[in-house]
């Protein structure tokens, strides 16, 4: 895990529920780094912390809501986005961040992602993609690579994974980026941009789950980090249809999409006030 576990005073202390440390994340887990980047980004926007709310679903990533010293809501599996939708619409002054896992956001909660993106709901969605269900012991997810081993695909995954940036683009997300937890600077920059803009922003972050995915596929945390380093192809502005996530062929990273169109709230206001 990252610096947030250290016993010294941490620069993010104000944004951390220090009384809840130690956290549950395993040694070598990538979630903590993504979590730290998110907090640094929240701080760097300069916005009043009390105007930011964090909503998570269920999973190891979903526990993020429990460690952030902001208004934070740890909801049900897959339902962080609709919960955040209600929150944002009830109080448009809030900046609402969804921090959750790939299983939560794209398997059980996939339908909500699709529709929130279509509506251009003004939310920032950060997805920690560890290629599996970490919390329940490393089962296959909608992001698990073809033929990869998980506890429910012991002979190899027969399914093809989503390419999340392409899915987000097709659904209408207006900001789309993908990084790995090694690319902390770019990642923090992307989250900051997402937080300061208006519209549905989606950031996928690859992060190792050594306990689940790693163990089953004989990849130590350091092996996965090496893959991230060696296979990264940074291509800002890449067409989402041409991005790939293949641990052998390469992993396209970058800020792929950013454009403006009216949000749900803006359109709602326009059509209902005449």
């Amino acid at each position, binding site marked *: 895990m990252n610096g947030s576990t250290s016993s010294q005073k941490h620069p993010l202390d104000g944004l951390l*529920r220090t009384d809840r440390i130690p956290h549950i994340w395993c040694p070598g887990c990538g979630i903590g780094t993504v979590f730290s980047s998110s907090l640094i980004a929240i701080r760097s926007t300069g916005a009043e912390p009390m105007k930011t709310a964090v909503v998570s679903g269920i999973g190891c990533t979903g526990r993020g809501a429990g460690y952030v010293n902001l208004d934070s809501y740890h909801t049900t599996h897959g339902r962080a986005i609709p919960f955040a939708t209600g929150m944002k619409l009830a*109080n448009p002054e809030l900046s609402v961040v969804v921090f959750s896992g790939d299983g939560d956001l794209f398997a059980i909660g996939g339908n909500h992602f699709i529709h929130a993106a279509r509506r251009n709901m003004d939310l920032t969605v950060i997805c920690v993609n560890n290629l599996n269900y970490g919390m329940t012991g490393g089962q296959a997810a909608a992001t698990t690579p073809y033929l990869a081993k998980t506890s429910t695909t012991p002979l190899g995954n027969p399914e093809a994974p989503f390419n999340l940036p392409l899915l987000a683009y097709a659904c209408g997300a207006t900001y789309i980026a993908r990084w790995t937890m090694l690319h902390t600077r770019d990642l923090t920059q992307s989250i900051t941009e997402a937080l300061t803009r208006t519209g549905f922003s989606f950031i996928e972050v690859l992060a190792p789950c050594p306990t689940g995915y790693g163990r089953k596929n004989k990849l130590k945390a350091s092996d996965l980090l090496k893959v991230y380093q060696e296979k990264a192809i940074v291509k800002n502005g890449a067409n989402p249809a041409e991005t790939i996530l293949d641990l052998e062929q390469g992993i396209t990273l970058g800020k792929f999409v950013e454009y403006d169109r009216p949000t749900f709230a803006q359109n709602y206001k326009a059509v209902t006030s005449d």
Partner: protein
Amino acid sequence: MEPAVLTGEHFLNGDVACAEGALAAGCRFFAGYPITPATEIAEHMSKRLPQVGGVFIQMEDEISAMAAILGASCAGAKSMTATSGPGFSLMMENIGLGITMETPCVLVNVQRAGPSTGLPTLGAQGDMMQARWGSHGHYEIIALAPASPQEIFYQTITAFNLSETYRLPVLIMADEIVGHLSERVIIPDSSKIKLRSRPRPKGRKDRFLPYRPGANGVAPMAHAGEGYMVHFTGLTHDEKGYPVMTAEAQAEMVDRITGKIRKNLDRIIQVERYRLEDAEVALISYGISTRSSLAAVDEAREQGIKAGLLRLLTVWPFPEDMVRELAKRVKGLITVELNLGQIHLEVQRCAEGRAPVVLVGHAGGSVITPEEIVEKIKEQVG
């Protein structure tokens, strides 16, 4: 802006009256998904909410509708959704989240006959036990049952008041017949409508404990954006709202969220007693079935039989003491409901064998007639 309270005399169906009741209660956020026979509630809210500065959103399903109203409530809005059987089933998990996070909101179930897709356009009261126990785990719920458009108007206001006072999702268990029946509805002047709102924190923000209960067992609620930096979770939690994975924390939390209802039964439960003082046979009924029950009581009295009715406005929590007391002094109890015996089980439980209990009910799709009830009354005294 149009007024939120449409004071005056109207001719409305139950669904529309429910929506107007919600607006009068201060509801300013509605998330829903269309389903017969509840759709008119959503349609009416979609028209009316923007007129009063509120927001309507049609979600992608009932799971997200329920999640959205919880999120809106956590940001401070009085919020509601409305559905029928299949959608009610989809809402169950997030009802439990609302119970555990202690988030006020109102959920209307305009019941149709089930199971499954059942009879979409025909009424029933078959979801009463699901209302009580449909979400997993042990909890208490509040559920009201209206018998007319006028009553659903008032009960929707009551539902909001109860949800705000006790911080939980409150259910209105209507049915297709009440939902689609058009009758006179009088909407009073807004000054005559008493509204309650959730208890709110006072004092230092950094010392605030989001789940430390006040005098009536209910903790004050801080909203997102107010600077209290609260943590809400569906995990078992302590007064700080922090997860604690022990049997002791579980006992403490569940005792508290059930206790706030159990300790306030007298304030929550509402019933109407009709010709019960000298009754030898007592009917126990709720919602649409009370209309036939009332007629049956009058008819039986015409025929010289001392019948009476305990009309449950609140079905959950169940008025156990009242039924116990009745069972001690009548010759027989009759449950009247549009299912094959759900609240009937409660009546039997509370009668404790002191009086025979029989059911007048069927699987739904049509109302129960007064004649069927009178027959049973005669059998009870005969």
